[in-house]
């Protein structure tokens, strides 16, 4: 069981406030989608959960304990690109986590341990549909297959939290639909809390148990004068040169109805579109 709590988290780079006063509780086994326009800080938010970025103030608790300030095996991740290692085969990429775990110095497994790791990796590859590609290098795989591999690789270490940074953003719509089915199956069958950044609202609503929107607030009087002629308020926000002075906050926290619960069958009426 893995809950995440953010307590008054701020993130600033120099004078630029990226995120301000983020208070959030993420229940165990949630599937949270973070949405918002480009540059609103949702990726920064994810990187703080990952431990790659440290909040300027406030704290993040994982199961009640402060988060380590560097990435570790509790938090798996899949990025939009560069998530797999180009010099290892598909199988090599998946067993790597086991080699890190069991062979601190040589970082190679032999004998029974290696056979066990391979068997486990093959089961995962079967699950993500890459069984027939074991000996290929990532450059020989399509974008969708690379992301499936990245998922299998992350799951090998059995993380408590899986962080997805626009993982399907670069994929074709058809392939994306397939991988949505996979990610939902993984969420339902493993003991995982998932936090996903996406700029695709329909993806967020299709997959997540909760959708959180980030947005920069702006209410400086001198800014408002300049907005009259623009097409929409939203566009204007991001065109403003004063934008950097204010961080993003959580503006909407949307419950999905009927509630989705990991592992529970979907209701007939609320059957997802996929």
């Amino acid at each position: 069981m893995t809950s995440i709590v953010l307590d008054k988290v701020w993130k600033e780079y120099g004078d630029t406030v990226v995120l301000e006063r983020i208070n959030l509780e993420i229940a165990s086994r949630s599937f949270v989608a973070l949405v918002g326009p480009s540059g609103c800080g949702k990726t920064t938010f994810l990187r703080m959960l990952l431990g790659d970025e440290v909040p300027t103030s406030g704290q993040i608790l994982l199961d009640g304990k402060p988060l380590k300030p560097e990435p570790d095996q509790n938090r798996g991740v899949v990025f939009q690109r560069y998530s797999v290692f180009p010099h290892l085969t598909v199988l090599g990429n998946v067993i790597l986590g086991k080699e890190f775990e069991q062979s601190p110095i040589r970082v190679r497994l032999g004998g029974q341990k290696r056979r066990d790791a391979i068997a486990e990796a093959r089961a995962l590859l079967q699950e993500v549909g890459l069984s027939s590609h074991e000996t290929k290098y990532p450059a020989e795989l399509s974008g969708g297959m690379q992301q499936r591999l990245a998922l299998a690789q992350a799951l090998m270490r059995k993380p408590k939290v899986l962080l997805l940074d626009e993982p399907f953003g670069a994929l074709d719509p058809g392939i994306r639909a397939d991988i949505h089915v996979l990610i939902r199956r993984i969420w339902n069958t493993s003991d995982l809390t998932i936090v996903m950044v996406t700029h695709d609202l329909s993806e967020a609503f299709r997959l997540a148990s909760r959708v959180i929107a980030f947005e920069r607030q702006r209410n400086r009087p001198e800014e408002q004068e300049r907005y009259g002629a623009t097409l929409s308020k939203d566009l204007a926000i991001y065109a403003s040169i004063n934008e950097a002075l204010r961080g993003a906050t959580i503006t909407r926290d949307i419950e999905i109805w009927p509630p989705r619960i990991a592992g529970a069958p979907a209701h007939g009426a609320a059957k997802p579109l996929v």
Partner: protein
Amino acid sequence: MRAINIKPDMTWRIVLALLPFAILLLLYIAGSDVRLAANPNDKLLPSFKSMGEAIAQYALTPDARTGLYLMWSDTAASLQRLLTGLAISTAIALFAGIAIGLLPLARATFGPVVAAASMVPPLALLPILFIIMGLGEASKIALIVIGTSLKLVRDLILRVYEIPREQLIKAQTLGASTWQIAMRVVLPQMLPRLIDSVRLEIGPAWLFLIAAEAIAAESGLGYRIFLVRRYLSMDVIIPYVVWITILAFLMDLGLRLLQRKAFPWFAAARAA
């Protein structure tokens, strides 16, 4: 059709590639003939026949004084210095490049000193090396190491920086320690890139080798060229220069083949 769209086929590529060589050769033969017709004892542009005889003398006949086949003993002496120097440089570059590229503490400590030291002209250090290490093999190898290793280190540091940050984070989320990341993520990805860098350093390595041999040596290809210069023996110098070029070319080719065979993933990963 636009010039940028005209592509030679295989036959044409070979013909075009050989063309400049053929022209150079013809120019040489013509020039040599003109000069030899005017003065049969001309030494500047010797005929192929006299070069052939000189090389037969050096490569196929034992030297009267030492009993050695001079061209082969020169080649062995030079290659031993060159390869030892390059091997030491490569080892230094792998270790220092990965350490400085990966560890912020090592970067802060050694980054500036490497950057500064790589600006020292290596040939200016040659007298110092001769004074400290004597005129033997050590000073020549040291010159090659000083001349090539710092550039290799700097290059490798940049290559380590080029590893996407996502990969290093991903490795950490798989539980890897710094050592494990260095061994399984960084090192294997650096080896094929290091081969590229070493290929580019073959030229400078020969430069430093020949410079050191020219000044103080008793054998070696550079030593021989500068020795016979006193007698204007172009019939030895020109074949030696061609031979050095062939050796350098073969080393380059060998490294390229090694890269392709040993790192099959690399070509595609680099293109991606």
